[in-house]
């Protein structure tokens, strides 16, 4: 049951070019900073990355875009990144834009053994093109398929050697369901605590979903839009 590895380099053992990765975070909040750096250093290429956003030019997934390691992004919003824009417009980067709630549910479904589901989001839009539409109780829904990853990389505030995780505030975002949908889920935490010290009532993701865990280092936790009260 001891899933602790020493660092990000050890945690990403087995990653290969062409794999699909799920990466937690919303904007730059709650992203697996250490794992992203280790993936950059590994030099693997042609990655498909599932992440709500694509980072900024010099941080988050932007780091893997700079080095052209990403072949395809599956995201809901990619607006804050010039490197992304250049690679997309030149045809080097493929992008699959998915409504945010659909993206979250596809990953949840992937982790929960549900192959597909019906949602109202996107009915009558480009998102519905080529998808099965079905009517339930007089309203139309479209079918969306589950998403899984060869690896999932998530960030939590606290975790233990069994892989139990606890998130902080809105840094949870996509991390909980991504943790459930990786063939190998790597969790990095601010603080690795002894088994038994997390109150079972306060475990957000049970350790069964996590294969490797480590305490991260040098977290920058960059703020994208610093807004304060003027008084």
């Amino acid at each position, binding site marked *: 049951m001891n899933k602790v590895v020493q660092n990000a380099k050890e945690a990403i053992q087995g990653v290969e070019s062409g794999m699909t990765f799920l990466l937690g975070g*919303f*904007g*730059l*909040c*709650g992203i697996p900073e250490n794992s992203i750096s280790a993936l950059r250093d590994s030099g693997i290429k042609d990655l498909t990355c599932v992440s*709500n956003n694509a980072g900024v030019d010099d941080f988050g997934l932007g780091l893997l875009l700079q080095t052209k390691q990403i072949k395809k992004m599956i*995201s*809901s*919003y*990619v*607006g804050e990144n010039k490197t992304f*824009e250049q690679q*997309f*417009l030149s045809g080097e980067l493929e992008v699959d*834009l998915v*409504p*945010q*709630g*659909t*993206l*979250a*549910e596809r*990953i*949840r479904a992937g982790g929960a053994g549900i192959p597909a589901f019906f*949602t*109202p*989001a*996107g*009915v*009558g*839009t*480009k*998102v519905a093109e080529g998808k099965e539409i079905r009517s339930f109780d007089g309203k139309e829904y479209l079918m969306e398929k589950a998403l899984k990853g060869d690896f999932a990389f998530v960030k939590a*505030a606290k975790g233990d050697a069994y892989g139990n995780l606890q*998130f*902080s*505030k*809105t*840094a*949870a*975002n*996509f*991390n*909980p*369901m991504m943790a459930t949908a990786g063939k190998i889920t790597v969790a990095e935490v601010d603080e690795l605590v002894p088994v038994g010290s997390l109150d079972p009532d306060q475990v957000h993701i049970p350790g069964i979903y996590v294969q490797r865990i480590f305490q991260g280092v040098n977290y920058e*936790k*960059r*703020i*994208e*839009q*610093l*807004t*304060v*009260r003027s*008084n």
Partner: protein
Amino acid sequence: MWSREEMAMQAALEIEDGYTVNLGIGIPTLVSNYIPSEKSVLLQSENGLLGMGPFPEEKDVNPDLINAGKQTVTAVPGASFFSSADSFAMIRGQHVDLTILGAMEVDQNGDIANWMIPGKMVKGMGGAMDLVASAKKVIVLMQHTNKKGESKLLKKCSLPLTGKNCVTKVITNLGKLEVKEGSFIVHEMAEGVTKEMISQATEGEIKFS
């Protein structure tokens, strides 16, 4: 004509006591400044916060606490945090009473376009498609005409849609219009706006209540 702040004030009047509301980016964000304190209202932010508060004081800034616009915010007493999957379960399951968002075009059937312009870099729809497909009420806050002076209230949207048949009200710099049975029904006009002015600025079918 109404300023951005006056439009936000008008939208705040639509919020009832006990409502849970999701506010989009842009003018909709301003609406929170005008919700009267005697009304008990919770703001939902789709990145996983129910009970969003105002911007923090400098000393309270926390990188783990942001809104869907990636701005640092606070949580009010009674707030809760949850995953993105739970957040959109709340939205799709119609537990959120009202969505207020911006748009590039709205048409008389309640279709909305606000996420892409063909030929331009597409940034993504974010949570907008999920929000408009499921909210009980969808209010659009936008200017009545675009920069070229063309109407944004149309017979039929020309841009790729975000959602079909979902907008219930439009609040613009010229007035407040309900979208019902294939028409824009003017409920209120801003100071200095005449029936002729608002009719001329509206390409879609328009009626006066």
